[in-house]
């Protein structure tokens, strides 16, 4: 336990202590400044968009992996964890190379639609979808595996169409897991740094994420500024952690009633 406090609690305590020294008024002034606000908003918005995408994509992928059979399924299943195992800096430079205006995927999109992917907010979305995907898939997948076929059969014999069964029987069973996966992917994406900074372009007010702004403030020896942004992000993380725990408590109650 001493190790826990030494490695995790002490550093966070140092941050909170420093924040208390600076005082709420000063902190608020920094967080409220236009550049910081824009960065926080961008981090949260992009994370939300990526997590929503992963909510749908992760569910579809988990469903396909559990229910459908196709050659190489086990390999695909293993590949889902790749974003988790791959260092973020590696993912960052690889994604940037592909989606840059002269990249394999970036160039055709640029030619056909005139849309830049890398160095815009879209690039940030792509990076955040990448890092969040394993969380979205791996929380739902075991729940799909545990669904008993009898439930679906009962629904079908009672005259429900497949769509009705999926919507009224399967989806409610998956909902807690889906929400947990969504929250985990969101939490991961809000704080993500390594994979984003290469692809983002890092223009203040446009593609500058909050963690990057912390690094910039630190490099300018503006510790107060860095602490203020970190406190705001920590508050978001705590809210997220609380949300995940609440979902789990709620789903436990839900499953014991059901």
């Amino acid at each position, binding site marked *: 336990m001493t190790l826990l406090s030494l490695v995790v609690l002490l*550093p966070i305590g*140092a*941050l909170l202590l420093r924040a208390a020294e600076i005082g709420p008024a000063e902190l608020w002034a920094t967080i409220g400044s236009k550049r910081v606000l824009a960065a926080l908003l961008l981090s949260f918005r992009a994370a939300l968009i990526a997590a929503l995408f992963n909510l749908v994509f992760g569910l579809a992928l988990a469903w396909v992996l559990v229910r459908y059979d196709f050659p190489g399924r086990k390999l695909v299943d293993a590949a*889902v964890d790749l974003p988790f195992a*791959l260092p973020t800096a590696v993912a960052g430079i690889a994604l940037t190379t*592909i989606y840059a205006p002269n990249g*394999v995927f970036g160039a055709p999109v640029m030619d056909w639609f005139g849309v830049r992917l890398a160095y815009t907010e879209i690039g940030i979305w792509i990076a955040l979808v990448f890092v969040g995907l394993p969380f979205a898939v791996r929380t739902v997948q075991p729940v799909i595996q545990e669904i008993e076929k009898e439930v679906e059969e009962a629904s079908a014999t009672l005259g429900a169409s497949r769509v009705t069964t999926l919507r009224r029987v399967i989806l409610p069973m998956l909902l807690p897991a889906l929400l947990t996966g969504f929250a985990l992917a969101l939490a991961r994406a809000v704080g993500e740094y*390594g994979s984003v900074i290469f692809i983002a372009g890092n223009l203040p007010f446009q593609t500058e994420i909050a963690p990057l702004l912390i*690094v910039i403030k630190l490099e300018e020896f503006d510790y107060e500024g860095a602490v203020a942004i970190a406190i705001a992000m*920590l508050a978001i993380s705590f809210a997220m952690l609380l949300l995940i725990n609440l979902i789990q408590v709620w789903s436990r109650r839900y499953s014991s009633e059901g």
Partner: protein
Amino acid sequence: MADATFSPMTDSALTLASRPRATRFRKATEEPRWFRWTLTAVVLVLLAVLVLAPLATVFVEALVKGIPAALESLGDEDALAAIRLTLTIAAVAVPLNALFGVAAAWALTKYSWRGKAFLLTLIDLPFSVSPVVAGLCIVLLFGANSAIGGWLVATGHPIVFAVPGIVLATMFITFPFVARELVPLMTEQGTSEEEAALTLGASGARMFFTVTLPNIKWALLYGVLLCNARAMGEFGAVAVVSGKIRGETATMPIMIEIFYNQYASVAAFTMAGVLTLLALVTLGLKTALEWRYADQLSASGRH
């Protein structure tokens, strides 16, 4: 009598007769074939574009000027220093965190005490804290302008912008991995086997090494594997605490960034390729563990 034997026969005759017809209809618990095919195709294409394409790109870009050029970039003095540093850091941080993970899981599952749920939440904390914030916390605690940091720098043991800081940052980030794998498993196993060992006269240490450890070894290995992969690849927290001094505090991921920003593409992607190979080996071992010891990894498929 004749009727009784007759009716089951018609039943089986009926099912036999209807079998070829039944296969033309899809099962009530399956989606239509066109839907299955479309969904599978869409999902696989997206996965290829998002996940497999970056993987392939790393190797393509690394080898674009041939294998000798790639190998030569790895022979660079700074590159070698980065590889050595990353190995050193993993060698310190991973065993420490494995030790802690076992201790924490032990305390959380074999005893009951107040505040257990709180500790469980705390262990997960590094997962939801941004790596950059984690790095900042360590800078604030041990940086040259803090009380502890000032004293440490004065006595010649700087932590921030030096190797100890990188180790601390890495430990912070990889803290939860081992404990998270062990806690669900050890909760499931309960304490009865340990109690049996104790009543048979085993000492505490003997009980741990002959009963507890064999029960958790695969889950432990699984957690260590994930912990190691993350420790070697950590970027955000290390970027903040290391100061990015080439040849001194630049780890492999930091070196990738330095090379990339200098437009030394082959060097950046070769270094990235080494880390990617590590990630692939990790994934391979992880998958093998999941297939072979699924029953002993209650937490398989979770992060």
